[in-house]
């Protein structure tokens, strides 16, 4: 092969390599920005350890991309509010290395549920085949329980034990996930929930001794 041809081939190879590297870099940086822009652009409202998207603005490219990654085919906020917890009430990441108590009262909404998801955002495999609780299958606390941080005299208070090993009536298994998430869904919530997203009463998630 003559030198000019060799030179030409070398140039083309370098060019292809540069394009490949820059595409990988650009794509990876885009994924990073999609994840971090949630904070920078204030998509989410924080309420305790829960964050919620108050407006599923799918005309925003970053928001649309993020939702397709972690909440594909989610419904609009007018139909359902998705409150996601990735941390406990002390701001520590939720991890199956620890046990937790989720303590709350029924929200003012037509249907609500808690679902636990693993690091990959899918349901976590467990022997009990238990993936969450909803308003009908949770065991409520008796009226007399009167826990200090929960509303008094209501039959809607509840506690859930989140751990790898079985614990109590409302046991939610978290498998062996380094990081897990809890999604509190509220379908057709009352107007007061929408008006006070930052302050509406939401459950606490506390780390407890094993």
């Amino acid at each position, binding site marked *: 092969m003559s030198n000019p041809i060799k030179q030409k081939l070398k*140039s083309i190879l*370098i*060019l292809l390599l*540069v*394009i490949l*590297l*820059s*595409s*990988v*870099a*650009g*794509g990876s*940086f*885009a*994924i990073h*920005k*999609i994840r971090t822009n949630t904070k920078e652009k204030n998509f989410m409202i924080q309420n305790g350890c829960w964050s919620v998207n108050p407006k*599923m603005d*799918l005309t925003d*490219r*970053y928001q*649309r*991309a993020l*939702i*397709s*990654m*972690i*909440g*594909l*085919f*989610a*419904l*609009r906020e*007018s*139909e359902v509010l998705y409150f996601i917890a990735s941390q406990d009430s002390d701001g520590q990441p939720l991890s199956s290395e620890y046990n937790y108590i989720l303590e709350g009262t029924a929200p003012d909404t*037509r*249907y609500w*549920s808690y*679902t636990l*998801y693993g690091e*990959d*955002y*899918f*349901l*976590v*495999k*467990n022997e009990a*085949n238990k*993936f*969450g609780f*909803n*308003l*009908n*299958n949770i065991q409520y606390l008796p009226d007399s329980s009167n826990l200090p941080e929960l509303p008094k005299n209501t039959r809607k208070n509840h506690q859930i034990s989140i751990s790898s090993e079985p614990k109590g009536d409302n046991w939610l298994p978290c498998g062996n996930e380094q990081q897990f998430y809890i*999604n509190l*869904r509220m*379908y*057709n919530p009352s107007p007061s929930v929408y008006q006070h997203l930052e302050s509406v009463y939401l459950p606490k998630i506390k780390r407890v001794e094993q």
Partner: protein
Amino acid sequence: MKNLYKYILIFLVSGFLAYQLTITFLPNIIYKIFYSKVMERDRQEVNKVNHIALPTDDSKFVVMPNPDFLYATAFYDLSEGPLRLTGNMPDSTYWSIAFYQPNTVNWFVKNDIEFETSTLDLILKEKGTELTVTRSSDIAESPVKKGLMLIRILVTDNSPEVVERYQNWQKTIQFQKL
């Protein structure tokens, strides 16, 4: 030296393009992957409703599935005209119908209370097309020719007999050509 500048410029331009394309088209790519997986697994056909069991830890097609929902899905294609969606729905639980574009934008959602009936009868047509038949009281106008329909039926009690009862309703959901 001249070549080095050239490659730096190419690196910056193609990196910028890759960034913009990823931000814009990631939802379409994820939708396409979902489409291919469903078509491959279930040997699905377009305009045919797929009735899905309650999600478990084996459900790996869509992130964050709700284990309380029976889902019915269909990829619709309005190239050959409008479609009619029918079914007998439960009258004592939440259910809703949602339509999505291939860029994952949810362009329509309507729930049981808004329908005011448990007999589902809805015409799906492309925006701007004329209807020759109007038997249905509900019409959904799609901004795109192709997309996804997703029906959610809430089942808060997962005992087998209750689930079976709801599945019987779920199975009545069908798409037909008008």
